[in-house]
């Protein structure tokens, strides 16, 4: 933001058509084609949407802890508003926060820089992707203000409830929600194709497949998973839209439709989607842990195989979301087996990350703490998943708060802890300034402790029988006990603390953005290509056209014996280095 673009670009570019000029405000912020600005657009839009998602969480947690109370900044929450709040919280956090920030923002920012390219292969397509995404966000926000309010049929949108305005009572909200989701899918399809093609074709000379930084692999695998799984849901969305608006009966049994079909169409996408957001976050761990342990990533190939294995297996497990949702019970056995088996690659991946610490020289900087936090918290989410994958146990846990706690222990570490890890780690590259480490650590500990305070009690209430999506437990005699209520209050209070700690982050971000100490081009002494740009933050084109990097070694050459420095950047030639 502050570094002058004083670099003397070579204009004798052999490739032609490659010209540099100082971007105008319009070109930079409104219609950018530079991947770094599009990444920022995604990042800020995602974080802005997170405020809405967080506010919804605040609303319904307050309602849970203090039923029918007057909620500060809102008022009383009606049952309809409650349903809308949980639905929109889920949709916003997954589709408009986790996806844009983890995949689109970091993918856009990192892929060209890490593979040594000057931009994405299709910069204008990239811009289109963001514009579609922005449009989808606007449609979604608009849907909160239409007559009868926002869609409240849960983010899974099971018909007939979602397909018929007579059932949901939000005909407009349902349709707009569906359109918003579909447009968002289109945005990420366009973006995903761009990511994959860029990583496949535009790698720097000399960069072989096992020299590619792990997060690039992870984002590409995630994009592939998204691309191969979202089709049926796009088809399903068209069908559901027709059900809502043209009187067809694809999913309504009153005339030959089948509600179970939607569940399959949804979860065929919905389960791989979990890994779509998980893999980029684990990729960040794979980037950050080696840097701060000053150590090579443990068994690069194995990490990659576990990621691919997880990705492939994720296509075979979707019906574990439907064990008791009306599928034939015989099929549940197949899906139990595949689901439990997915623990093998994921556990191995976690082991490999932990093994990377072995023999390291570990520095507990803020990004490192966040990366370790991902591993620590995700472990809880991972092991509690086993309860859900085992069909016999899922019969009891399905749609209880145990589920809620479980998937928040996966999604929160992925989408927030992972994002904070990536954000604090790449902040110097994105904005050219360092973040405040003390404030970062305060934010880390506050967030981690309060996050566990929110969801650990919810495992207990789930075991006690608390169902999800219940507006007010006072209607259920067995659930309206003081013990359970106390746990709910602990959870809500923890949420308030967590929200309070986010102000530390916001303060730190804006303070560092404008007044933080100027960072060098490689403040963490990392090896990957994004730290080798001559300017910080990199200007348009990332490297001068006549000095594009070539790659001579893998991405994690730390503490190589016989070298003075404990890192060996990928672009340093062997003899000259």
């Amino acid at each position, binding site marked *: 933001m502050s570094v002058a673009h004083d670099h003397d670009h070579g204009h004798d570019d052999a490739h032609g058509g490659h010209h540099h000029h100082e971007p105008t405000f319009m070109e930079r912020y409104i219609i950018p084609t530079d991947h770094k600005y599009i990444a920022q657009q995604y990042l800020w839009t995602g974080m802005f949407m997170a405020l809405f998602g967080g506010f919804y969480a605040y609303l319904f947690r307050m309602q849970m802890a203090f039923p029918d109370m007057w909620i500060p900044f809102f008022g009383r929450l009606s049952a309809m508003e409650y349903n809308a709040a949980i639905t929109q919280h889920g949709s916003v956090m997954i589709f408009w926060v986790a996806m844009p920030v983890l995949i689109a923002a970091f993918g856009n920012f990192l892929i060209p820089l890490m593979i040594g390219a000057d931009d994405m292969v299709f910069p204008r397509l990239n811009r289109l992707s963001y514009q579609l995404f922005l449009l989808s966000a606007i449609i979604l926000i608009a849907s909160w203000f239409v007559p009868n309010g926002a869609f409240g049929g849960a983010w899974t949108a099971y018909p007939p409830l979602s397909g018929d305005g007579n059932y949901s009572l939000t005909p407009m909200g349902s349709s707009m929600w569906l359109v918003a989701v579909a447009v968002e899918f289109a945005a990420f399809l366009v973006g995903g194709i761009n990511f994959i093609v860029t990583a496949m074709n535009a790698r720097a000379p000399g960069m072989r497949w096992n020299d590619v930084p792990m997060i690039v692999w992870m984002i590409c695998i995630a994009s592939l998973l998204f691309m191969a799984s979202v089709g049926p849901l796009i088809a399903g969305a068209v069908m559901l839209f027709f059900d809502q608006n043209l009187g067809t009966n694809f999913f309504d049994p009153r005339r030959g439709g089948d509600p179970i079909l939607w569940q399959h169409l949804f979860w065929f996408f919905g389960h791989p989607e979990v890994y779509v957001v998980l893999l980029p976050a684990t990729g960040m761990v794979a980037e950050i842990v080696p840097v701060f342990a000053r150590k090579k990533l443990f068994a690069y190939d194995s990490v990659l195989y576990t990621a691919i294995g997880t990705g492939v297996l994720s296509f075979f497990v979707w019906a574990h979301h439907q064990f008791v949702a009306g599928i034939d019970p015989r099929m549940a*056995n197949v899906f139990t087996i595949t689901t439990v088996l997915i623990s093998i690659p994921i556990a191995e991946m976690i082991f490999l990350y932990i093994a990377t610490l072995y023999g390291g020289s570990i520095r507990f900087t803020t990004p490192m703490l966040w990366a370790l936090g991902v591993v620590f918290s995700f472990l809880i989410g991972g092991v509690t998943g086993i309860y859900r994958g085992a069909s016999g146990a899922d019969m009891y846990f399905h749609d209880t708060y145990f589920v809620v706690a479980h998937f928040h222990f996966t999604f929160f570490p992925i989408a927030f802890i992972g994002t904070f890890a990536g954000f604090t780690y790449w902040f110097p590259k994105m904005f050219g300034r360092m973040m405040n480490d003390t404030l970062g650590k305060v934010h880390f500990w506050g967030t981690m402790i309060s996050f566990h305070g929110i969801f650990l009690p919810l495992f207990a209430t789930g075991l006690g029988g608390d169902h999800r999506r219940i507006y007010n437990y006072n209607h259920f005699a067995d659930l309206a006990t003081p013990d359970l209520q106390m746990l709910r209050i602990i959870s809500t209070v923890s949420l308030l603390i967590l929200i309070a700690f986010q102000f530390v982050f916001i303060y730190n971000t804006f303070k560092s953005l404008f007044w933080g100490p100027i960072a060098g081009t490689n403040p963490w002494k990392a090896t990957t290509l994004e730290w080798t740009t001559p300017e910080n933050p990199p200007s348009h084109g990332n490297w001068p056209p006549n000095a594009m990097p070539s790659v001579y070694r893998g991405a994690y050459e730390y503490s190589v014996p016989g070298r003075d420095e404990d890192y060996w950047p990928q672009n340093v030639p062997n003899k000259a280095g």
Partner: protein
Amino acid sequence: MQLYLLPGSTYAGDIDSLVLLITGIVGFWYVVTNLMFFYLLWRYRAVEGQKALYVTGHEPDLHRWIAWPHYLIIACDVVLIVGAVRVWYHIKQNLPEAGETVRVVGQQWAWSFQHPGKDGLLDTPDDIKTVDEMHVQVGQVVHAKLESRDVLHSFSVPVFRLKQDVIPGRVITAWFEATVPGVYDIQCAEMCGIGHGIMAARIHVETPEEHQAWIAQASPQI
């Protein structure tokens, strides 16, 4: 604190045992992994002048540390799958002979129950129809014919550990055999619209005498 619900059906104990089995296995892994994690973090914290090891992770003596747990996990998975499928088969696929068959109809936002009445048969004039109130006899296998009039609901009785979604257009048969007399919650566990949060019913598990008395008292006058 009373968090643990009493097991109120013949198979509730099976599910609880399965949960304990899973807890044992994943608890072991959780503890071991965390011990390793924090040990390594402490042991290899940065020390002035000490350089990190340079290993690729493919050295056999190191990779063993990944490979062996890997095999052990496969073994654990087999145990888990066998345990889960056994319980599942017993509850969802197997259907013991019914002592009584009750039709359960979910609609926005109430449960209605059609008990077979004195003659023990459904769809006869002496059926007992109730709303948000189900009566069953302890120690008797009850088949619940689950139906829905409008959207998805879910018939969930936490004390029985039973949960089954109710799908419009389909008849799904669930069964249970209650073991402890008392009155418990029936909850709708699938989002079904505005009133989802008030879609509660109560199940009365009665001794044979109480149940007969209830039938006698509740039967419609024909």
